[in-house]
C-alpha cells in the first residue's frame, strides 16, 4: 500500500482548494472517487490488510469518502454560484405569452345588460329568430296593413313568416306560457332590411317585460333609470319622451344626455344633446287580451334596446358595420 488514507485525504483537499472551476472539480472527483479513483482503490485493497486492521481501516476509509463527497459538493456550489452571476436574466425580455382570445364587444355589452337586470330580479328567456307574423306583429297590436309596420323594415320569408324585427315577440311567447307575474328580459338577434353607418341588417336587442299587480309608469321610470345609471354612470341624465309603439300605451322613448358632448351638441347626438337608447311603455291592453291576461287585474311595462347602439356609445365606435367584419384588430381591443 503506497499512500495512507490520511495522505489521500489531505492531497484531495489541497487539490480541491486549488481548483479554479467546476470542470476541474469534476476531474478531481473522478481521480479520487471514480471507479479507479484513489479512495475506491484504497477501499478495494483493504482486503489485503491483516484481518484485525480491516474493520478500522474500512470505517476510516468510508468516513473519508463521505467527507470528500461533501467537500466536492461544497466546492461545486461555490464555483457554480460564482458562475451564476454571469447568467443573470434580462427580466425586461418579453415573457412567453399564453394565447388569449376576446369576447365579442356585443357579447360583453349584452352580458353587462343581462347582469344588471338579473341583479334586479329578472329572468332571461330566448326565442326563435325566424318568427310568425302573429308573434312579430299581429299579437303585438300591429294590424295587417297598418302604417306602424313601416317603422320596421321587414325581411320576409313568406306572407306569414318574417325574420323577427325586434325581440318583442318574446313578450307574447312568454306570456302565452306563463301566468303573471312576469319579470323577464330576452336578448337576441333581430333583422331589418337597412344598411348604412348606423344600421346593419342584423343587430342585437334586449327586450324586457315586467307584469304584475299595481305596476306603474313610475316603476318603469325607476327601473330604467337604475339601468342607465348602472350601464353608464350615476351622473347620466335621462329624459322620458312620449312616443308610439303599437304594443305599449303610454309609450316612451328614453334619451340619455349625450355621452360624447355632455349635452352641448355634437355629431353623435345630431346636435340635440340627447341620445335615444331605449324604447318603452306600459303594456297595451290589446296585448294582454291576445295572451289571455286580465288587464283589469294586471299592468306591466316593456322596454327594448339596441345592444350595438349601447356598445357604440360605451366604446366610441362610429360605424356599426365594424361589429360584423370580425377584423382581429377590432376584436382585440375589447
Amino acid at each position, binding site marked *: 500500500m503506497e499512500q495512507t488514507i490520511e495522505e489521500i485525504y489531505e492531497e484531495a483537499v489541497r487539490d480541491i482548494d486549488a481548483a479554479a472551476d467546476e470542470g476541474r472539480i469534476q476531474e478531481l472527483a473522478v481521480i479520487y472517487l471514480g471507479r479507479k479513483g484513489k479512495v475506491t482503490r484504497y477501499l478495494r485493497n483493504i482486503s489485503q490488510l491483516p484481518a484485525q486492521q480491516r474493520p478500522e481501516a474500512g470505517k476510516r476509509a468510508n468516513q473519508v469518502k463521505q467527507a470528500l463527497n461533501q467537500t466536492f459538493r461544497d466546492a461545486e456550489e461555490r464555483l457554480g454560484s460564482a458562475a451564476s452571476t454571469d447568467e443573470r436574466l434580462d427580466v425586461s425580455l418579453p415573457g412567453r405569452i399564453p394565447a388569449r382570445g376576446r369576447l365579442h364587444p356585443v357579447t360583453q355589452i349584452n352580458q353587462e345588460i343581462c347582469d344588471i337586470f338579473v341583479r334586479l330580479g329578472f329572468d332571461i328567456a330566448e326565442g326563435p329568430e325566424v318568427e310568425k307574423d302573429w308573434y312579430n306583429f299581429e299579437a303585438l297590436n300591429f294590424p295587417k296593413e297598418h302604417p306602424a309596420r313601416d317603422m320596421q323594415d321587414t325581411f320576409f320569408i313568406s306572407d306569414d313568416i318574417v325574420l323577427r324585427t325586434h325581440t318583442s315577440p318574446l313578450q307574447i311567447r312568454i306570456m302565452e306560457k306563463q301566468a303573471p307575474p312576469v319579470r323577464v328580459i330576452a336578448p337576441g338577434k333581430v333583422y331589418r332590411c337597412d344598411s348604412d353607418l348606423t344600421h346593419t341588417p342584423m343587430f342585437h336587442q334586449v327586450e324586457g317585460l315586467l307584469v304584475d299587480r299595481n305596476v306603474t309608469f313610475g316603476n318603469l321610470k325607476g327601473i330604467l333609470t337604475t339601468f342607465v345609471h348602472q350601464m353608464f354612470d350615476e351622473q347620466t341624465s335621462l*329624459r322620458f*319622451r312620449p312616443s308610439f309603439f303599437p304594443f305599449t300605451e303610454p309609450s316612451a322613448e328614453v334619451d340619455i344626455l349625450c355621452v360624447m358632448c355632455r349635452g352641448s351638441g355634437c355629431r353623435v347626438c345630431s346636435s340635440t344633446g340627447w341620445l335615444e337608447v331605449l324604447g318603452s311603455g306600459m303594456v297595451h291592453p290589446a296585448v294582454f287580451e291576445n295572451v289571455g291576461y286580465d288587464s283589469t287585474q294586471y299592468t306591466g311595462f316593456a322596454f327594448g334596446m339596441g345592444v350595438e347602439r349601447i356598445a357604440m356609445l360605451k366604446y366610441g365606435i362610429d360605424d356599426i358595420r365594424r361589429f360584423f367584419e370580425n377584423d382581429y384588430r377590432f376584436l382585440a381591443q375589447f
Partner: protein
Amino acid sequence: MIVSLSWLRDYVPIEWDTDRLANALTMIGLEVDSVTDRYDHLKQVRVGRIASVRPHPNADKLKICEVAVGDETLSVVCGAPNVTEGMLSPVALPGTQFADGTVLEKSTIRGEISEGMLCSEIELGLGADRSGIMNLGSGHPLGASIKDALGLSDAVIEVDLTPNRPDCLSLIGIAREVAAIQNAPLTYPEIPPDASDGNIGELTSVIIEDPDHCPRYTAKLVLDITVGPSPFWLQDRLMSVGLRPINNIVDVTNFVMMETGQPLHAFDYDLLADNRIVVRTAKEGEPFVSLDGKEHRLSGDMLMICDGEKPVGIAGIMGGLNSEINDRTTRVLIESAYFNPVSIRRTAKTLGMGTDASHRFERGVDPAGTMRANERSARLIAELGGGNIAGGAIDANPIPYQGGRILFSVGKTNRVLGTNLNRDAMADILKSIEFSIETIDDDVLGVVAPTFRVDVSRPEDLMEEIARLSGYNNIPETTPLIPAEGRPLAMTLRFREKLRELMVGFGFSEAIAYSFAARRSGDMLNLPKDDPRRRTLAILNPLTEDQAVMRTSLIPGLLDALGRNIARQNRTVRLFEVGKIFISRGRNELPEEIEMVAGLWFGSRQDGSWLAEEAPCDFYDMKGVVESLLAGFNVPRAEFTAMPDSACNYTRSGHSAEILIDGEVIGIVGEVSSGVLASFDLEQPAFIFEIDCHQLMNRTPTEIQARPLPKFPATARDITLIVDRNLESVRILDNIRNTEETLVESVHLFDVFEGDPIPQGKKSLSFRITYRSSSQTLEDEQVNRIHRDISEKLIQSFKAELPG
C-alpha cells in the same frame, strides 16, 4: 311634417322662442328633427348698387353692369329691362343656392364673364314679380346680405311624427298642440257660408259603389274660373313648407291639405264623362295613366275615382292625366273624401306610389272634416280664380262616422301612471286638445275624443294624453317591489357562457357574422344534393345576393372573416362563433334553428419570438382545442374517428375526424379542403371544427361527484410497440384502458415514430402506463408481472413487435 312658423302664426300666437318651442314639441311626443331658417340661402345674396350699364357687345337684349358690392365691384351680365344706373338690387354671388335648388356658378354669357346675377323677386322666392330685377329702394348698406337688409327670417321646423298622429299632419294640428302647451287660443280659418242656392245636384252626381273602401265622398263645383299662377302669399305659404307652386287651383288644394290635413283633388269638370263621379274598384288589368305620366295596370281591389265611363283618379293617391286641371279649365270639381286607410295603403304599396295624400289617408284623416275642407277650398278657388261656387255640395256618406264615449277612471289613471292628479286637472288637460268631457261621478269621466284623433279609443289612450301633456318627466320614479324568489339561469345560457369562456381561454376571439348566406353557399361548401344544409330558407326581399338565404353553417362566415383578416394582414387568426343555423321546413313553416359552435385556426401555432420559432398550426392543434373543450365540460369519453372520404365535403380527406360522444356524432374537426379554400379565395391551410351545441349540452354531465385522492404512490412502466402504420393508436389505448387489470390507472401515448430503423409501412408507438392500487404500495415484482402480461396481450392483439 314640415311647419313654418310664419304660417303657424295664422292659427296660434307663438310666445316662445324657437328652441323652447321645438323642445316643448319634442317633449309632448312631436319629435322635432331639425329647425332651419328658410331664408338662409339668401345669406350669399348681397345688396349691390348698379354703378354703370353698357350694352353687351354680342347680344342686343343683354347689358353689362358694373355692380358695387361694398369693397369690390362685380361685372354682371343682365337681361332685365328695368336695370338702371344707381338702382339698389340684390346680386347673387357664385355658390348661392336658389329656392328651387339650383346653384349659381360663375359663367361666361356670349363671351362676357358674369361674376354674379342680378335677381328678380321670383328668382329669390320673395315675390311674384318676374318682370325685372328687384328694386330694393334706398338706405341699405352695400354688400350686406339681403337676409339682414330686409330682415328676412322664418323658422322651419321638421317634425318626425309617429304613425299614430295623422292629426298633426297639418298646420292646424300642430297649432292645436302648440296652443295646448302655451295655453293660448287656437284660431280656425273663417269660411263664409255659400251665398247661392244649392243647384249642384243638377250639374253632377256621386255614386259610391264600394262603401267599405269609401265611407264618405263630398264634391263641390266652382264655375267660371280662370287658371293662372297663384298670388304670392299662397306661393309663399307653399314654398315655406317645401311645396312647389303650380297654379291657383292645384295650389289651393295643396294649401288646404297642409292647413287641415285633408287631401283634396280638383278635376276639370268638363273632362269628366257625363260630368259625374263613380267610386268603384278597378277592373282587373285596367290601364291607367296617373298625373305623373306613369302608366299602371290596375287590379280588382284598387279603389278608383271614375267618371261616367272610365277611371279619372287612383282614390286617395293620385289623379289622372285625363282629367287634369289645365290652362283651358273653367269648371272645377273638388273632391274631399274619407277613404278606408287599409284600402289606400294596399293600393299605394302595390303600385309603389307614396304621395302626401296617401300618407294621410293611410294613417286616417278626420272622418268628419271632409266637408269643411271642401268648403274652404271652394271658397279660395273662387276667390283666386275669379269664379262662382255652384250652390250646395254633394255629400255621399253611406257609412256615417260613429264616435264613442270612453269611460275614464281618474283613480285607475293615477294608479297606472303613478301620479296623483285630480279629476279637474285631468279634465282640463283633455279639454285643452278639444276632447269633450262629461262628469259621471267623482272618479269617472265620460270622454268623447275629437273626430281627428283617430288614435284614441281606450282609456289607456287617454292616460297617454294626460301623461304627455302633464309631462313624462314630472312623473316620480319609483321602484317596483320584486319578491326574492330567484330562479336558476336557464341551462342553455350557462352552457353558452361557459363555452365562450373556454374558447377565449384557448386563445380564440369571438366572431359574430351575419345570419345570412349566399344562395350558392351550399355549392361553395361542396355539400351533396341531399345534405340537410341544402334546405335553405330564402328571404323574399334580400338586400344583396350574398345575403339571400339564412345560413345553414357557420363555416362560410368564418372563412369570409378569414379572407378579410388576411387582406388586412392579420397573419394568425383564431376565431370562434356561437350562433344559430337555420334548416328550412318549407316556406310556410318556422325553420329548425340549431345553435352551433365553430372554430377556425389559421397561421401559426405560436408567433415567432426570441424564445421559440414561429410554427404553423396543424390538425392536432385544432383537435387539441376540441379535446380541451370537451374536457372543460367534463365530457367523460369522447371519440374521434376518421371521417369517411365520402363525407368529407368541405374538409380534406384523411385530415378530418368526426367527434362522437356515446357513439353519436356531435361535430367534426379537420382541415378545410383546398377546393373550398379556393371558392373563398383562400390558399393556405385552415383548420376548423364545428359542434352542435344542443347535442354537446345534452351529453354534458350536470353534476360532478368528487373522487377521493389516492393514498398510495403510483408506478409507471413504458412500452414501445412496432405496429402497422395504418393502425389507429386509439385502438391500443382503448385496449389498455379496457383491460381487466384493475391496477391500470391511466395510459398516455408519448411518442410516435416512423422511418429508419422502423421498417417501411410500420410505426413505433410508445406508451406510459401508470399503475396504482387504492389499498397498498405496489411491489416492483407485481407491477412488472402485470406490465408483462399487458405487453404480451398487445403484441398478440395487434400483431405488434417490440423494438430490436
